[in-house]
């Protein structure tokens, strides 16, 4: 079995992995990116639609174009790629990390790395996770898998479809399927408001007169070998009103019901997972509870803009570089950060005093105008940020300046609160 030594091993060649690895390699460290797919790029390769890179490149790019830009940077920096390879085991070995990698080309390779950046992204929530009643038939597929079949291999998943979930992935697929000649009969959403951006409701549903059924749940999927119809019913007090059940004939049901960070490897080597994000608990340098293991991108928390993924990954990588070059950081007391009113989580979970830190969070509410407040445990307001068009589908970022955190006593605890100023129109 071959053994290799690298400075930094990056697990995942998607947006996070590519962005992080460039920074590491440019700093002169031997950087290896490991990924199971054939080509680097992650899900960007199948996201053939527009909307990527407005912040990061100041251009509107498609997913594959964004991926190509990141890949060019990585190659130019001297990043090494180990594609079609699966990390089967990750563990600590003294001060280093040991990765056991399986690939068709090299068999089993043991990689020793001084630091590891976790960038494995997410998996999709499946029908099975939700206990949707009904028959187990062909034609039930998650939106991301359908997107892969369609955009990479050109396979049509069916001829008439109902989409469950009105998040952006589901909405984008509504348009995609329609442009491929598949009839999308409805998009069904359990909440009373759509999960995705309004512009996507406009350009993916309204443009094609696809009905959006809010506060509606799936009562069952029916068929013998293949989907023949789906039952839906309005939700009343949290329960389906079966007296108003509708049966929609179709041969395909697409599920777009959420993403779950892929942290199996992280758990395996003792990284503690935050149940609010399903990603690792990380400190101000995006390092997990295991020294030398860092996390960024969707595996840390589910993002909606890839531009933020790149920024987060680059920041994470810079910290990983410092870790490798300077050794483990001195034991310092970081300020704990937590989400309070109206926010479902805040990442990272701590902040180094004196270091400007970008915090990422998700609101629990929908409102036209709101104010984000970062308070010290004793009630002092450290930061205020005015926000518009606040919705759970859109992540909020806030930068806490180094001077502000430096001025806090080391027992301070940062509490992030969101105060709605105006309720959103439904």
């Amino acid at each position, binding site marked *: 079995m071959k053994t290799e030594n690298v400075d930094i091993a990056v697990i995942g060649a998607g947006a996070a992995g590519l962005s992080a690895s460039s920074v590491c390699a440019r700093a002169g460290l031997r950087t290896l990116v490991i990924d199971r797919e054939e080509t680097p790029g992650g899900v960007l390769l199948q996201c053939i639609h527009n909307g990527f890179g407005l912040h990061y490149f100041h251009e509107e790019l498609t997913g594959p174009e964004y991926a190509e830009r990141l890949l060019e940077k990585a190659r130019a920096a001297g990043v090494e790629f180990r594609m079609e390879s699966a990390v089967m085991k990750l563990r600590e070995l003294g001060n280093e990390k040991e990765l056991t990698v*399986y690939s068709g080309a090299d068999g089993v390779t043991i990689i020793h790395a001084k630091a590891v950046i976790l960038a494995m992204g997410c998996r999709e929530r499946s029908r099975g996770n939700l*206990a949707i009643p009904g028959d187990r038939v062909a034609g039930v597929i998650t939106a991301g898998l359908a997107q892969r079949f369609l955009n990479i291999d050109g396979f049509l998943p069916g001829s008439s479809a109902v989409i469950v979930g009105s998040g952006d992935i589901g909405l984008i697929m509504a348009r995609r399927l329609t442009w491929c000649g598949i009839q999308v009969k409805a998009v069904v959403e359990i909440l009373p408001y759509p999960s995705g951006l309004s512009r996507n409701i406009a350009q993916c549903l309204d443009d094609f007169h696809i009905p959006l059924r809010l506060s509606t749940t799936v009562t069952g999927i029916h068929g013998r070998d*293949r989907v023949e119809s789906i039952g839906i019913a309005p939700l009343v007090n949290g329960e389906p009103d079966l007296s108003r059940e509708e049966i929609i004939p179709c041969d395909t049901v697409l599920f777009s019901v959420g993403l779950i960070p892929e942290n199996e490897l992280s758990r395996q080597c003792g990284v503690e997972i935050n149940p609010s994000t399903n990603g690792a608990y990380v400190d101000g340098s995006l390092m997990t509870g295991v020294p030398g293991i860092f996390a960024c991108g969707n595996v840390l928390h589910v993002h909606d803009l890839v531009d933020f993924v790149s920024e987060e990954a680059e920041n994470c990588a810079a910290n990983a570089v410092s870790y490798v070059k300077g050794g483990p950081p001195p034991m310092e007391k970081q300020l704990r950060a937590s989400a309070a009113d109206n926010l479902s989580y805040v990442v990272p979970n701590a902040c180094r005093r004196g270091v400007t830190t970008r915090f990422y969070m998700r609101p629990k509410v929908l409102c036209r105008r709101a104010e984000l407040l970062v308070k010290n445990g004793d009630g002092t307001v450290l930061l205020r940020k005015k926000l518009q068009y606040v919705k759970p589908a859109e992540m909020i970022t806030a930068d806490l300046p180094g001077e502000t955190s430096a001025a806090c006593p080391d027992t301070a605890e940062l509490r992030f609160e969101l105060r709605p100023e105006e309720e959103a129109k439904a």
Partner: protein
Amino acid sequence: MEKMENYDVAIIGAGVSGAATAYTLSRYELRIALLEKAADVGFGVSKANSGIVHAGFHYPLTTLKGRLEILGNLMFEKMQYELGFPFRRCGIVVAAFSEEEMKEVRKLYQRGLENHVPRIELCDRERMLHLEPKLSPEVTGGLYAPNGGVVEPYRYVFALTELAKLNGVELFTNCEIVRAERKNGLWELSDDSGRLFRAKYAVNAAGLYADEVSRIFGAEEFKIVPRKGEEFLLDRNSKAYPSKVIFPVPTGHSKGVLVIPTVEGTTMVGPTAEIVEDKQDTSTTRANFKQVFTLAKKMVPAVSERELITSFSGSRPSMAGEDFLIEPSKKVPGLIHAAGIQSPGLTASPAIGGYIRDLLKEQGLELREKTNVVRSLPPMPAVRNMSPEEADLLHKDDPAWTRIVCRCESVSEAEIVDAIRKGHTTLDGIKFYTRAGMGRCQGGFCSYRIIKLIARETGMTPEEVTRRGRTGTILRGRIGAEEKKNEN
């Protein structure tokens, strides 16, 4: 007219009963045909089985099922040694939560003693919590049967069939028998695609359709009533994973909702039990989901809906009388029924095979042992059970061993190709044979690779690959195919 094949015995149905019979008979100088109507073996009742090897304290020895259960239970080590399917004799506990329930437990214990269930124990609360720490502290007592266990039911059926095939049994899938005529002392059977089979004897092991098959043979009229059970599978990381199979105190027809530590490390809760009308009903319902989790949590508080990865259901072939019907037809010659094989069918199945062989012998079937019998299946290497050194070594002969297709369950391309070459050419067939697609992501990451492998190995187009046969294709066309057709 198609050429007719001549057999000594035609077994209709390749579930636990049919496959165990084929396995048993395959040791003798006999021509055996195993006829299965689905795309793969075990795809009927057996697929949705809970996978429990019962201990033998539920049924009296006056019942056939009680006797065969005790015998079958004892045979599992030998079967595992020969066939290599996953099996663990982890033990069974029945948990009581009141004095009323303890009364029932004592009855089961009595029956266990009468049935000579080895080392069966009546337990107080302390002993129960010591044996199974995951139990709710509300438990008042129970019983412990160390000889109970868990098995992977579909791997078991696959293995029985494979060894039977290695010993000459001919398997026909997608083969639904629709007509049976008695001619010249032989049965002439035809299937739904016009294939014809001739056999001296036939075994009706058709599960949910045993009543219909009996009618096709002009034999006894009986009715199989499907009693559906839903099961819910929790993530591998679930904290609810117990060390023993946990039973509640049984009520009426059902053994109740169990918490099962599957052999492969996931936790399963269920099954429910309700009569349904449609034999093909494999749907799951909200009401049952809620009921199952409420009952399961009562016994094991750590059970959580959040950890659900999938659910499924299947129906038990229940019959009036509630015992196995394994006997020669009194109406027509040369037909052995194996009907109404519900719980403890899986546990009893090794013994069912022997029982049917003996019935056939009584009917005149000559049994001459083969001289060169293949006694065991070659071990089926699985990357997830291998050390990295072993995997690396295998890779030197075939790089597909370290090409991981299913990351959630650690299944390599080599294992999937092996499954395809053995005849498992549907997504479900491969899933049940290799576990690829059974994990956390439920096929989200590996389906497209498996479909391509099936296409590569069989020459099917990706659009022809099905979930489990018939019209259940996954993909329905290709972009540009319509335009290409219109051009030509």
